[in-house]
C-alpha cells in the first residue's frame, strides 16, 4: 500500500498512507482548490452575516416600506443604499442572502452528518454481522430507496409544519440508505480478508473489528460520497423552501427568496437573480470540489 518510493538508495523511506497521497493529489488540483476557496468565502459570508447587516445598516427582516419600495410598491433595483436591490416587502436582498447562507450551510452540514453517521453504523452492522440483522437492514434500505423521496418529504413537512429541525431530519432519514448500501457492499468483501481474521485471533470483539479494523478501509468511498452529498442536500432544502415548506417567514433562506421572487421575475430581475446565483455558485463549488475529491481518492477513474 505504501510502496510509493522504491528508490533503494533513498536515505529515508517515508511511509505515506493512501489518505496522505489523496490529499496531495487534491492539493494539486487547481479547480478543486479554487472551489474550496469559494466555499470558504461562502462560509465566511454566513459567519459574518451580521457584519453585512451592520455595514448596510439594514437588519435582515427590517421592511423599508418607504425607502425600499418604489411609489408603486414594487421592489427597488440595486443602488447605493440597497446594493443588490430590495424584495417585495422592501427588505435588503444582500443582507438576506448573507443570512440565507447560514440556513443552507447549516442544513447541508447537519443533514449530511446525520446521514453519514447513520449510514456508516447501519451499513457496517448489516455487512459485518450478516444473518438476520443483514436481512432486515437490507430490506429497510430497499424500502427507503424505493420511496419517492421528495413527495414524502413534502407530505411529512406539511403534516408536521416547517422548521429547521424537521428539514434536517427528513433529509437525513431519506438519505442514509445510500451510504449504508455503499458501506455494506464494501464490508461484505472486507470481512473475509485476512486482517479481520488476524484481529479476531488477537481477541478483538465485533465492535472493535467493525470500527477500528474495517471502518478505515471503507472511508475513501464514503468521503467521496459525502462531499458530493452536501450540494444535493443544499438543493433539497432549497427545493422544499421553494415549494413553501422551508422555514417559517420571515427567516431568510435562498429557496424561499426565489419562491417569493417568482411573481416579480418580469419586473425585478435582481430579486430572483442574486439568491439564484448564490445558490448556484454554492452547489457548483461543492460539486467541483467533490469531483476533485473523487479524482484524488480514485485516480484510476481519471487515468489517461
Amino acid at each position, binding site marked *: 500500500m505504501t510502496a510509493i518510493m522504491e528508490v533503494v538508495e533513498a536515505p529515508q523511506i517515508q511511509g505515506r498512507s493512501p489518505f496522505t497521497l489523496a490529499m496531495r493529489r487534491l492539493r494539486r488540483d487547481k479547480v478543486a482548490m479554487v472551489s474550496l476557496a469559494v466555499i470558504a468565502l461562502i462560509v465566511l459570508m454566513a459567519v459574518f452575516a451580521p457584519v453585512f447587516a451592520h455595514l448596510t445598516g439594514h437588519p435582515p427582516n427590517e421592511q423599508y416600506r418607504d425607502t425600499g419600495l418604489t411609489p408603486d410598491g414594487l421592489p427597488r433595483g440595486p443602488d447605493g443604499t440597497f446594493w443588490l436591490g430590495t424584495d417585495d416587502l422592501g427588505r435588503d436582498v444582500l443582507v438576506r442572502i448573507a443570512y440565507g447562507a447560514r440556513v443552507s450551510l447549516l442544513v447541508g452540514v447537519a443533514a449530511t452528518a446525520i446521514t453519514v453517521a447513520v449510514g456508516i453504523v447501519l451499513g457496517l452492522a448489516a455487512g459485518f454481522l450478516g444473518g438476520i440483522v443483514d436481512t432486515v437492514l437490507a*430490506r429497510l434500505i*430497499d*424500502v427507503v*430507496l*424505493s*420511496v*419517492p*423521496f*421528495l*413527495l*414524502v418529504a*413534502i*407530505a*411529512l413537512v*406539511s*403534516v*408536521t409544519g416547517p422548521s429547521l429541525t424537521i428539514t434536517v431530519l427528513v433529509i437525513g432519514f431519506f438519505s442514509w440508505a445510500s451510504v449504508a448500501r455503499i458501506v455494506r457492499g464494501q464490508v461484505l468483501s472486507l470481512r473475509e480478508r485476512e486482517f479481520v481474521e488476524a484481529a479476531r485471533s488477537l481477541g478483538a470483539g465485533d465492535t472493535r473489528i467493525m470500527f477500528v479494523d474495517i471502518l478505515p478501509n471503507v472511508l475513501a468511498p464514503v468521503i467521496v460520497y459525502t462531499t458530493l452529498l452536501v*450540494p444535493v442536500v443544499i*438543493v433539497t432544502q*432549497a*427545493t422544499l423552501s*421553494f*415549494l413553501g415548506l422551508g422555514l417559517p417567514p420571515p427567516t431568510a433562506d435562498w*429557496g424561499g427568496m*426565489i419562491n417569493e421572487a*417568482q411573481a416579480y*421575475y*418580469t419586473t425585478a430581475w435582481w430579486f*430572483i437573480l442574486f439568491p*439564484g446565483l448564490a*445558490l*448556484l455558485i454554492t*452547489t*457548483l463549488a*461543492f*460539486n*467541483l470540489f467533490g*469531483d476533485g475529491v473523487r479524482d484524488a481518492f480514485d485516480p484510476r*477513474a*481519471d*487515468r*489517461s
Partner: protein
Amino acid sequence: MVVFLIRRLLHGLLVLWLITVAVFALFFIAPSNVAQSLAGRQATPETIALIKHRLGLDQPVWKQYLHFVWNALHGNLGYDYYHQVPVTAIIGQALPITVSLALGAAILWLLLGVFNGVISAVHPRSLADRGLTLFSLFFYSFPSFLLGLLFLYFVYFKLTLAGFNWFPAGGYSPLAQGIGGWFDHLTLPWLTLALLLAATYTRLTRGAMLDVLGEDYIRTARSKGLRESRVIVRHGLRSALTPVVTQFGIDLGQLVGGVVVTETVFSLPGLGQTAVTAINQQDLPVIIGIVLFASAAVVVANLLVDIMYAVLDPRVRLH
C-alpha cells in the same frame, strides 16, 4: 433463473407492503383536520362526526389499514375526500403527462450524456473533455426550479416579448389534440430535466468507456485495421453501455415520483403536481395512492434492471 426471478419478485412485493405500512402509519397517525375543513367553518360537531364516519376516519387505524389493503388488492385505491373520484382514475389522468415528460426528457439526456461521455473518453484530459465535464457539472448543480425559471424567463418571456411566440408559459396539451401543441408545451420541461440528469450519464459513459478502451480486445480490433469510429462504437460503446442502461432503468422508475418540481414550475398537471395539490388539501387517499404508485414504479424498474443484469451476466444468478 426462474427461482431467481421469483425471489426478486417476492422481495419487490415485500418492499411494497412495507411501504404501505410506513406510509399509512405516517399519514393516518398524523393529526388531521380534514373533516373540519370539509365541513366548513360553521359546522356543528355532529356534522364533523358524520363526515368522519362517512370517510371511515372514526374507525381504529388498523381497521382502516386492513380495509385499505383489501381494496388495494382488488385494484381500488379509495376515493378522494373532496369529489369522491376514484384515486385510480386520478392517477390514470395524471400518468400520461408524467410519462410524456419523463420519456421525452430521457431520450434527450441519454443522447446528450452518452455522446458527451464518449467524446470525453476518447480524448481524456483534452480541452473537450474538461469543457464537457464543466458543462455537465454546471447543469447538474442547478436546482431544477432555478433552471426551469431561467428557461421561462429567457426562452418564454424574453422571446415572447421580442415577438417570437414559440413556447407557452406552461400547462399541458394532450397528444390526442395534436402533436405540435404537445411538443411545444413539453420542450422546455424536457430540456430542464435532460440537462439536469445528463451529467450522471456523461460521467458513467466516460468511466465505462475509459475502462473498456484499455481492454485487449480493443487493441485487437484496432490491429485488425478497423476504422477508429467502428472500434469505438461497435466494440467499445457496446460493452460500456451496461452501467448506463442500469442507471437508466433506476432513474426512469424514480422519475415517476420525482418530477414534482418540474411539473410545478411549468404547471403540468402530472402525478407530481397532483400529489402536491393533494398534500395541500390533506387529501390522504390521493397522497397514499400516488406515493404507493411511484414506489411501485421504482420497485418494478429495479426488478427489470435485475432481470436484465441476470440475462447479461450469468454470474448474478448464483446468489
